[in-house]
């Protein structure tokens, strides 16, 4: 079981709700993934203050925890306002905090992120900050009151998989007790398995599932990969060696030849 902010979650796969071919396809993917948490963007679907209407009813009806996000916010003020709105709409203090620094790459503005995280933590929010793999930023976020970190492994929607494994490994090593959820950049189930093998606690996906030919099947594939990666991490992975080692001793040959 994964525990985040005192809540136990059965699944280690978080699923985003944007970009599916249809709401019906989204529902199928959520079911197939057996996810415990879906994220939802408040800002994008809130045009005119008309709170997403039917779409949000559908999200609520999924029977899983909702993690609202502040996607599309470029300033501390916008992010804080959106978080407060999300708390009202979804009746949850959880907020996936995104403060975007670069419109094009959607890279987080880590300075604004830390500031917004401090404000929201003080106001009693359970903040899930979307950050880079930077160790010092991670420390600042924890100082600000976050008890979960969501580092990217590559830019949002890029499907590139883990780009900087050393940094990810270092994060895991420095914060053994903090739930670390890889958010953004995963393209294939093997990417999810790879970060789970590094010891990350969970992953968050959206585009890789929503834009797959068959979103429900891809969601199921990711669920298996996450499970496999987690199991492998616990089982103790064999570290790579520089020479071949036969699994069966060779009889009749000089061993150290």
């Amino acid at each position, binding site marked *: 079981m994964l525990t985040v902010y005192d809540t136990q979650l059965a699944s280690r796969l978080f699923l985003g709700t944007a970009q599916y071919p249809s709401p019906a396809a989204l529902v199928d993917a959520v079911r197939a993934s057996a996810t415990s948490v879906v994220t939802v963007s408040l800002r994008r679907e809130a045009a*005119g203050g008309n709170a*997403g209407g039917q779409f949000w009813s559908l999200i609520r009806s999924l029977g899983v925890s909702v993690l609202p996000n502040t996607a599309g916010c470029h300033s501390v003020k916008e992010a804080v306002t959106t978080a407060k709105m999300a708390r009202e709409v979804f009746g949850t203090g959880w907020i996936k905090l995104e403060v975007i620094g670069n419109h094009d790459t959607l890279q987080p503005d880590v300075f604004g992120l830390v500031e917004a995280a401090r404000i929201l933590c003080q106001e009693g929010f359970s903040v899930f900050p979307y950050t880079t793999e930077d160790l010092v930023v991670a420390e600042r976020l924890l100082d600000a009151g976050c008890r979960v970190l969501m580092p990217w492994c590559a830019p949002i929607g890029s499907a590139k998989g883990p780009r900087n494994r050393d940094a990810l490994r270092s994060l895991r090593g420095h914060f053994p007790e903090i739930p670390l959820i890889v958010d953004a950049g995963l393209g294939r189930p093997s990417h999810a398995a790879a970060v789970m093998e590094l010891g990350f606690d969970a992953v968050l996906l959206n585009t890789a599932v929503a834009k797959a030919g068959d979103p429900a099947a891809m969601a199921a594939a990711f669920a298996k990969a996450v499970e496999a990666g987690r199991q492998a991490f616990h089982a103790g992975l064999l570290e790579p060696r520089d020479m071949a080692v036969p699994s069966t001793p060779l009889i009749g040959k000089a061993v150290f030849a």
Partner: protein
Amino acid sequence: MRVLIRGAGVAGLALAHELAIRGARITVMDPRRSLAETASWFAGGMLAPYCERESSEQLVQDLGLGAADWWDKALPGLVTEAGTLVVTLPRDHSELDRFAARTTDSVSLGADEISTLEPDLRGRFGRALYFKREAHLEPRVALRRLRRKLAGMGVTFQNATGGRPAPAHDVSADCTGIARAASDPNLRGVRGEMLILRTRDISLSRPVRLLHPRFPLYVVPRADHHFMIGATMIETDWAGPMTARSMMELLNAAYSLHPAFGEAEIVETGAGVRPAYPDNLPRVEGDGTTIRVNGFYRHGFLLAPAMAQRAADMILPPFYPGVLNETHR
């Protein structure tokens, strides 16, 4: 057979036409004062069944394949059969591969072939997909012409706000689009925003789709140097004015397609709410006397013909003049 059609958007008008040519007596009722209040008014008018397959079910493609012929037969000269060009900025080339993998019936073009098709895009794109067998039309012209033609065929149009009771009828067809959501919880609104630009600096012969990981957009050339730029997809039934953000995204994308759009006049911004079912597929439902045609989502002009034919088949058996002539001879 007397048929009452509620709703004078593309669904209602296409059904009226399909029934009128089969000999029904039709009244079309709509509470709206003008066609400009229908979602159809803000449509792109692309008859692009192959491109739409990228983000839709196979059914949308299958239903849409006959659309261009249907419109051409109903309103000769309306449809432009010039295909669709799909391009992307160099750094997003993988989007083009993805699009190609998800669709059929396209050919891959290089820079020279692109500039042969669209001289004004010369040098701007190194690669493109060309969907040769697609078409487009001007939705507003289509709606006006269809309405005029129907009136000429004896179809009665009645404004439903006048308090006049519905005329006597044998069958009623509900084609009210998003208005039906009030009594059908399965139906939801998906907002689409568009803008119309005018510039003499660039001309295009066919719809151009610009793929972008986040803001896919299309530009449809219209008469008199106008261009329709669309369209956003937002999960809300709010029909208010376009947001600054959407405007910025659409303009940004248009500008990336060609900087000449930066100097264009903004003639109009608009927003419509499209009706959709949870699977984003259209439906014809009902018994022989009350039927509902709805859920066209973002495919109004593409799906209206096939859905009108299906609905008409439920109301009246198809009329085959050739067959009848032979039997009676």
